[in-house]
């Protein structure tokens, strides 16, 4: 549609809004209200925009409009060298950046057939799982904020702060980590850090019952999540949802379990699932996952001392390293689901093509179908239960 025709429709039918709003309104029924939720709406977590067609407070149709935070990471990947692309991976998902770090370096290692030292694998597991805790805590607080409770996010951040303090030691930063390297990790874990983790685990374990008492058991919260946003396993299949969203619909699928990468096959942990298929299922799965993550952490910290090798392989790839030609697909489990990176190399210094498969993207794509016929307040609840990180959706 050229800009002229856009203008004409506006003049004739007096339909306001930009291209997407008009495009959406073409399919509207009579006597309905078109609402722009976002890009500056408190519960769209940043700059997601959802156009809603509502009848009263019931949503008839929804269409997410993306791209307000699009940075074209895939193009940047084709310009930078293999090594230089790593910092980008810290910026895709601010909630769980280490999973993206891992997906990328894992894909490159697979491509080049690089073996990572055992100790580095342990460090990766420990930092990544800590980061998963931080990610779930962030989701928990923000979700409760969406549902109108202000206090939980501050309790969550109290704990999250302790995790960030720990993660700051090996990574140097507190939010956008880029500490994984092709062939290992940037910095080793020192004694103090390991001790901090050991101290943290029991403290956090004691906090979980408080979370349950304050929020999970609360009748108002339960009424807000139970039966909201039904996603049958068929919906999960058709939209390719993954992570807690899939597990909340009773699909026992966790990349760490079903397609074990690194050393995850050595740990004893459960993959929590809920059969309720609703926001409550996704909520409970994440809460239980925090407890399971603590279990993995305990085992990993114990295994760290016995692990062989350093934190990075000898003769690790340098910034001017050339990857062999070929392609590799590598998937890891992030806090939101399956993070996939497809790298294609023509044997030169820079990647030929990098495809980033983000879980939030697939999870959000189901929103339009799931939100049909629900109340606006429920739409907020569904959006929150999908645990969206907008930079990851837009990449």
């Amino acid at each position: 549609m050229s800009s002229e025709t856009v203008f004409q429709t506006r003049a004739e039918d007096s339909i306001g809004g930009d291209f997407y709003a008009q495009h959406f309104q073409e399919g509207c029924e009579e006597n309905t209200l078109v609402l722009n939720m976002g890009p500056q709406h408190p519960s769209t977590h940043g700059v997601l925009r959802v156009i809603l067609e509502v009848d009263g407070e019931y949503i008839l149709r929804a269409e997410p409009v993306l791209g307000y935070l699009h940075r074209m990471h895939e193009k940047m990947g084709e310009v930078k060298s293999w090594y230089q692309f790593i910092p980008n991976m810290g910026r895709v998902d601010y909630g769980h950046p280490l999973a993206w770090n891992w997906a990328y370096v894992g894909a490159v290692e697979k491509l080049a057939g690089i073996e990572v030292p055992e100790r580095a694998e342990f460090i990766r597991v420990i930092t990544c799982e800590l980061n998963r805790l931080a990610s779930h805590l962030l989701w928990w607080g923000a979700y409760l904020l969406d549902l109108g409770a202000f206090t939980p996010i501050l309790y969550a951040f109290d704990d999250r702060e302790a995790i960030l303090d720990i993660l700051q030691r090996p990574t140097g930063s507190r939010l956008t980590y880029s500490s994984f390297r092709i062939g290992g990790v940037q910095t080793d874990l020192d004694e103090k850090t390991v001790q901090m983790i050991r101290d943290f685990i029991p403290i956090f374990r004691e906090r979980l019952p408080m979370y349950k008492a304050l929020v999970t058991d609360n009748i108002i919260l339960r009424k807000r999540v139970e039966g909201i946003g039904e996603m049958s396993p068929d919906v999960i299949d058709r939209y390719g949802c993954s992570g807690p969203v899939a597990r909340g619909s009773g699909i026992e699928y966790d990349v760490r379990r079903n397609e074990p990468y690194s050393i995850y096959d050595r740990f004893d942990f459960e993959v929590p699932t809920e059969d309720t298929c609703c926001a409550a299922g996704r909520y409970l799965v994440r809460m239980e996952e925090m407890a399971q993550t603590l279990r993995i952490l305990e085992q990993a910290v114990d295994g760290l001392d016995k692990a062989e090798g350093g934190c990075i392989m000898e003769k690790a790839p340098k910034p001017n390293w050339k990857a062999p030609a070929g392609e590799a697909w590598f998937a890891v489990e992030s806090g939101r689901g399956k993070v996939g990176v497809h790298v294609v190399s023509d044997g030169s210094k820079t990647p030929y093509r990098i495809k980033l498969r983000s879980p939030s993207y697939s999870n959000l794509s189901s929103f339009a179908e799931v939100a049909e016929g629900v109340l606006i307040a429920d739409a907020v609840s569904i959006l929150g239960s999908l645990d969206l990180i907008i930079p990851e959706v837009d990449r």
Partner: protein
Amino acid sequence: METIRRNILQPIKDLWSLFVGLKVTGKFFAMKQVTVHYPRQVIEDENLKSYAGHIELVGKPKSPSIPKCISCQMCATSCPSGCIKVTRQKAPKPTPEQQKAMDEAKAKGEKVKKPTAPKNPAGFMLDYSLCSLCGTCVEVCPVKSLRFSNDIYLVGRSRDDFKFDLLERLRSQAEPGCPVSEKKQQARMTDGNHG
């Protein structure tokens, strides 16, 4: 029985959950606060040192105001964001005696011995506003002349405040009362005030 459970016992249980919530927040209300009043109180924690801020140069052990850097440009070329600029020193102009010796050597057809440039850089500029703190430069440095600083209170009033002359920074670190840097800093402060 089921109807009684659903219509009477369950609502009572549900109501009780509300009281439990009040109890939790009430308990935290009585507990000590966990935040600090920043300007009056600061956290004195060893952990703050683990924060990796912008990079800085490491001086030679014997003369701390001269960096170990050998101007090899590894950091500048491997930086993903291109925020480092290292300029090599130019070879000094030969002194009259050296010039004479060079001319003689040239006349004899021998190998000319030009005075070599010192290895340490003439300028080392960092544009911190572009930096993504990935640490690549620190890792690739062959002589370990770069490290992370750990000033968590770094602030600036304009983009230009984050363009650092790392050589000057090293000098002022080596000699705390270095007049040049102080003057420049003062100029910066007044600039900020005017702007």
